[in-house]
């Protein structure tokens, strides 16, 4: 009687161990394929973008002189869609406007500061305030986690001249 009970206990222990190891094996087994789909800050695979996707600054034009400290910038997106930050939909991203800054590292979340403006609501235009002088503007798309796509979807870096509004 007691040996049967012992055997039952041993069996249940074996079953329990199998279940646990099974769960662990399943966990480790499913983790790598899931990684490319959801890129996190630690994961290196970036969200793919179609080769023909591109963004451009529709306004102002490269080399333009703007007679105002407030500059309207509109973001052009072609062969690609716009989605708010945090939203993972294939072939979409949200805009980042780089002001007087080079491209940041493309395998990390885009910094968020006065030189890297985020448009996480899915905005497609903005008005920025710039001091008089020469400034550069460039667009860079980020995925749901603010990480650039692969290949990166970025615009030409344009230069504009801001002059004070003429006074009479």
């Amino acid at each position, binding site marked *: 009687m007691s040996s049967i009970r012992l055997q039952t206990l041993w069996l249940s222990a074996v079953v329990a161990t199998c279940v646990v190891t099974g769960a662990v094996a399943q966990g480790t087994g499913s983790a790598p394929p899931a990684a490319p789909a959801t890129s996190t800050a630690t994961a290196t695979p970036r969200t793919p973008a179609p080769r023909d996707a591109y963004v451009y600054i529709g306004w102002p034009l490269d080399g333009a002189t703007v007679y105002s400290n407030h500059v309207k910038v509109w973001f052009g997106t072609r062969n690609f869609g*716009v989605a708010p930050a945090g*939203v993972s939909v294939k072939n979409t991203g949200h805009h980042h406007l780089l002001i007087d800054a080079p491209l940041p590292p493309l395998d990390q979340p885009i910094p968020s500061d006065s030189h890297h403006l985020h448009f996480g*609501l899915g905005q497609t235009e903005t008005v920025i305030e710039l001091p008089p002088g020469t400034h550069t503007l460039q667009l860079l798309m980020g995925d749901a986690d603010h990480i650039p796509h692969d290949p990166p979807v970025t615009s030409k870096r344009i230069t504009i001249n801001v002059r004070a509004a003429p006074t009479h």
Partner: protein
Amino acid sequence: MRRTWALAAMLAGTLLAGRAALAQQSTMPPDAKVYIIWPGDGQVIKGAFWVRMGLSGAGIAPAGVEKANTGHHHLIVDADLPPLDQPIPNDHNHLHFGLGQTEARLDLPPGKHTLQLLLADANHVPHQPPLYSKRITVTVVQ
């Protein structure tokens, strides 16, 4: 056909939104504005062209994505505004940009055509109050 589509859309909307009833329309910031950046009203265009869709004071989100103060573009070609409390029809006169696109290539037959943008929410239902652009007229020549 039209009724079938509406029923399908209602079903899809119910599945996507769950509790959100179609009667309850999404809202937008009061200063939000949708407009056609290009072409301009009255423009004469040769051949196929790109329509550039502008939105200020709000954001773009693909269809099916529920997020406050966002929507996706619909381009109405040669048609009046559809009913503003129902999902926008999906046909040659009502183009949907459910991926969150902000540009569209149009190849229209020569002649006069009207274009108008209408923004809609995750379920393709216009906001309340509705956000639509001025209806412009362009002339396509060969």
